[in-house]
């Protein structure tokens, strides 16, 4: 009884606390801190290698590209970030003579981007930049024993330093571009092979550095491949010049208007040579000290803590004077997205990311108020909550009570089912007759696949998802809404909206293709299609079943080959797939970034590119080259219209859906305009800490009475046990029948 009482008292004491389940101190919850989660540690924080969406909350918070997108304007509008404005290229012919802006693409040999930088942009405090009063670096010539035991940049104190920062210069951008080509950088750049086709001299630099690197490693013990620092400042790169401290010039081969979008990505950011010089010291890599783990940038935040389950970004004290935008779109003011107009950025002091491997606890903690948004890098996970709220199911009442912001947005992403054009059944076909038959088969399958049903069932009934009529998503130039934008192969315009063609149309195409009722007219055998999917597991099974049912409408039998992503990709690379499910998320908001997915030069099997359907059409390719070089306008639209018309007719994809997004934010989060394209959004966010603390306390009042009830139930259970025990202990041979031999006792 004593123990029971003590337990109850402890529980009551616990009940006296305001909040018992808070994962952080209440003081922090009331502070200017943003809480989010991550499910996987970032693999690369070095801007050379970082390309994954889940790394963007760190990379775009710590680094600053030359350009960025206006936070509020839609369609997405590029503007200068560390550059003063968006550079307008000058064009030169092959003799170096200047060409007018509207010169024919084929005459342009070089585009010259002259980029003016904002002055006075400074790096975050960092030991690599720490110098004493005499100007000598404090941590550039350390011995391994001085590095031993240090596993964080914070282990190199800056209090002895006269300075621990410096101004970022144009030479630092040039240095970073050289790093893209350098094998001395520990992890390769996924973008190097694209950039070396465009930046003048980058390929030559890469080849030269590769040869030097191989020579330096020749005959080295594979267990010790340490190489000293390679000073890339001394390596010539003809296409990239720092004309002065604030002027960077980049020469691009030919005309490539999309290059400006790459300037808004984290591949081209200032990196101080001192950082490489610091991290290359023997012993640093052994202690996981490198740019991939500890970035050095000029961004609004800096990484101050990282562990397996927690990352912390703090306000960069050296961040320049950047302001919240004062203009946006109609409706932005009503959303409160202009309330902080003109305020100095960043608005947060700190961003804390906690590890959440599983979705359930992450969602539950969101509902408890412990996450301001579930995952800062993603806004494609809010559909389930929006659906619950709209359908009045599940947690709909709690969602309303908690005033959770569920904000839909259109994002340049598409999902589709692709046909392997190398396949004899669904592919291009060898003879003209075969080509027609195969095309009709693809068209029939495209009609039969009811994507409207797909997104209604599995995705987003209430958000901005829509059926894809081609590869170009809404919000991008080239996309046409309404009747002008429908895919006439799969849809008709009826009663003011696009309606999928009736199944009979698909069946007629099947007959023309030689597969009446899904049977090959020549052999009489049913048509069997192999469907490759990288989605596995019970949750995905419903989607696979759905796909099987779509083709079954035409009598086609489908064999699903669900595999992990490795095997899936391997099949794609080898062209062993027949039809497959895949998607593409834009690098930048330009139609080129989707239309290139169907160009011959991107063929997966032949060129290891991104055209997994291995589609090849000379007219499409020709139009692509033309469209790529054109500015947005009627001529470009015309080219895109024709390209869309070609791929709709050829149907290398069953154009699936543009999924849209739904951002999830707590009521105390301000300025959360959902976007997947703008990655430097954390600096615009603001939280009302005191409101959060109040709500968290309100929503998480400990309920102790069930513990008391449980103790009572235990007591009730123990009472007869105690009585029984006492009876047995008091029993003697006369009253007790002990049958040890048989093992029974009563």
């Amino acid at each position, binding site marked *: 009884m004593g123990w029971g009482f003590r337990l109850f008292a402890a529980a009551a004491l*616990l009940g006296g606390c305001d909040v*018992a*389940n*808070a*994962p952080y101190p209440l003081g922090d919850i009331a502070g200017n801190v943003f809480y989010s989660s991550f499910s*996987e540690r970032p*693999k690369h924080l070095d801007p050379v290698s970082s*390309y*994954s969406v889940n790394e963007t909350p760190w990379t775009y918070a710590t680094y600053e590209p030359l350009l960025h997108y206006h936070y509020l304007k839609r369609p997405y509008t590029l503007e200068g970030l560390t550059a003063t404005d968006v550079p307008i290229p000058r064009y030169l012919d092959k003799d170096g003579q200047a060409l007018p802006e509207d010169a024919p693409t084929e005459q342009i040999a070089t585009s010259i981007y002259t980029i003016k930088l904002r002055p006075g942009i400074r790096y975050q405090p960092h030991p690599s930049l720490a110098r004493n009063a005499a100007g000598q670096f404090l941590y550039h010539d350390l011995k391994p024993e001085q590095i031993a035991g240090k*596993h964080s940049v914070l282990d190199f104190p800056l209090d002895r330093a006269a300075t621990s920062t410096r101004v970022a210069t144009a030479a630092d951008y040039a240095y970073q571009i050289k790093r893209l080509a350098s*094998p001395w950088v*520990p*992890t*390769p*750049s*996924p973008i*190097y*092979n694209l950039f070396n086709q465009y930046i003048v001299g980058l390929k030559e630099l890469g080849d030269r550095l590769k040869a030097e690197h191989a020579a330096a490693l020749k005959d080295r013990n*594979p*267990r010790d491949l340490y190489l000293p620092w390679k000073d890339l400042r001394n390596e010539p790169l003809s296409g990239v010049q720092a004309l002065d401290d604030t002027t960077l010039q980049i020469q691009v081969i030919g005309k490539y208007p999309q290059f400006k979008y790459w300037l808004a990505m984290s591949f081209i950011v200032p990196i101080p040579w001192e950082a490489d010089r610091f991290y290359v010291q023997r012993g640093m*890599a052994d202690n*996981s000290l*490198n740019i*991939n783990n500890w970035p050095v940038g000029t961004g609004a935040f800096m990484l101050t803590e990282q*562990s*397996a*389950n927690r990352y912390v970004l703090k306000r960069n004290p050296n961040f320049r004077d950047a302001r919240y935008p004062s203009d946006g779109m109609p409706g932005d003011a009503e959303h409160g997205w202009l309330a902080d107009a003109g305020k100095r950025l960043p608005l947060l002091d700190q961003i804390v990311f*906690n*590890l*959440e*491997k*599983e979705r*359930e*606890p992450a969602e*539950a*903690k969101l*509902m*408890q108020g412990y996450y301001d948004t579930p995952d800062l890098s993603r806004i494609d996970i809010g559909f389930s909550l929006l659906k619950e709220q709209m359908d009045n199911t599940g947690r709909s009442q709690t969602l309303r009570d908690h005033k959770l912001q569920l904000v839909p947005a259109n994002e340049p992403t598409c999902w589709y089912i692709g046909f392997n054009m190398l396949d004899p059944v669904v592919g291009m076909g060898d003879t003209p007759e075969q080509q027609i038959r195969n095309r009709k088969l693809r068209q029939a399958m495209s009609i039969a696949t009811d994507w409207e049903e797909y997104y209604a069932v599995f995705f987003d009934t209430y958000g901005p998802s829509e059926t894809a009529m081609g590869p170009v998503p809404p919000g991008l130039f080239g996309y046409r809404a309404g009747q002008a934008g429908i895919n006439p192969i799969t849809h008709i315009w009826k009663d003011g909206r696009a309606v999928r063609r009736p199944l009979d149309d698909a069946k007629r195409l099947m007959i023309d293709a030689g597969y009446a009722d899904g049977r090959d007219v020549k052999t009489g055998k049913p048509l069997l299609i192999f469907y490759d999917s990288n989605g596995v597991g019970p949750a995905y099974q419903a989607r696979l079943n759905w796909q099987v049912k779509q083709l079954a409408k035409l009598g086609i039998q489908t064999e699903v080959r669900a595999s992990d*992503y*490795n095997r899936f*990709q391997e099949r794609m690379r080898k062209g062993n797939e027949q039809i497959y499910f895949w998607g593409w998320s834009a690098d930048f908001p330009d139609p080129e970034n989707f239309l290139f997915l169907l160009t011959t030069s991107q063929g997966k099997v032949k060129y*290891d590119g*991104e055209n997994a359907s291995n589609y090849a059409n000379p007219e499409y390719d020709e139009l692509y080259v033309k469209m790529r070089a054109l500015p947005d306008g009627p001529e470009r639209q015309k080219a895109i219209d024709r390209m869309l018309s070609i791929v709709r007719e050829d149907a290398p994809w069953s154009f699936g859906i543009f999924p849209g997004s739904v951002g999830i934010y707590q009521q105390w989060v301000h300025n959360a305009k959902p976007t997947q394209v703008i990655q430097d959004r954390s600096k615009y966010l603001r939280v009302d800490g005191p409101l959060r603390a109040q709500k968290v306390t309100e929503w998480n*009042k*400990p*309920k*102790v009475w*069930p*513990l008391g009830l449980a103790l009572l139930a235990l007591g009730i259970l123990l009472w*007869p*046990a105690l009585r*029984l*025990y006492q009876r*047995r*202990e008091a029993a003697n041979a006369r009253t007790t029948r002990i049958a*040890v031999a048989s*093992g*029974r*006792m*009563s």
Partner: protein
Amino acid sequence: MINYIVRRVIYSLLVLAGINFLTFFLFFSINTPDDMARLQLGGKRVAAEAIARWKAEHGYDKPLYLNLKAGGTAMLTHTVFVENSLGILHLNFGKTLEGRDIAWELGKRVGPTLAMATPVFIVAVGLSIVFALGLMLFRYSTLDTVGVVALVALMSISSLFFIITGQYVFGKLMALAPLSGFSPGPGMFKFLVLPVAVYVLSQLGADTRLYRTIFLEELGRDYVRTARAKGLSESTVLLTHVLRNSLIPIITSAGLLLPALLTGAIVLESFFGIPGLGSFTIEGINNQDFAIVRAMVFFGSFVYVLTYLLTDFAYAWADPRVRLQ
């Protein structure tokens, strides 16, 4: 005794070497170095050249087992197996694919795992013994039957159910403990209460039932009858005689629990966000990081081998008749 130890150590080394080879064989039967490179470099725009460079930089650019291009011993030594796998035998765990030092990571992660495993081990074994002895007091009564049914029910329920229910009831409905998370230092207590309770509960059914069976068997022995004949109370018989004589099988089963706990309760750490060895293993598997997988398998095997060795010594302590030869 010394001979015994030497012999067991040699056996153990052979076992560890065999496990190391098997790990390598199984891992690369499923994954290829190309797969690893693609996963690390991301799904978009990955050129063959970048993959080749990644493999060269991480030492996966050579044949797995036999380098036919090399001559002499280099045929064997210039292979992924020798260069990437044998180092572990002299405790060089290497680096993760992201460049993090695995030995350091293990050092950092063993703390949270131990913080969870130690109370689980003590409480689970202790409670199981107490409950099993309790059931012995009421054996063959209705209470015993109800107890056994409850134990079977506990055994039949997946640990995942306990985790989700525990989080729902204590973390969400009653709001008495954080749903997940971890904090080093004294702050870890509130994060560990729930996972420890859940783990103990999930262990309770099987362990208690096993111990109950062990005790039942002991109760039928002659020394118990003698003890009773001496007039000892039932509780004295159980606590003083039966428990002592049941220690060997208890040590065996408890010994099995310890390495499983130390290598990390994978699902538990994953759901509760505990940055221990279990979540490190998951991280390695998800990232197709051979160095982590190899290190964790090696570490797990080492703990198992060591535990079995210690268990044998514990036998000798628990039962003077046992001689280690």
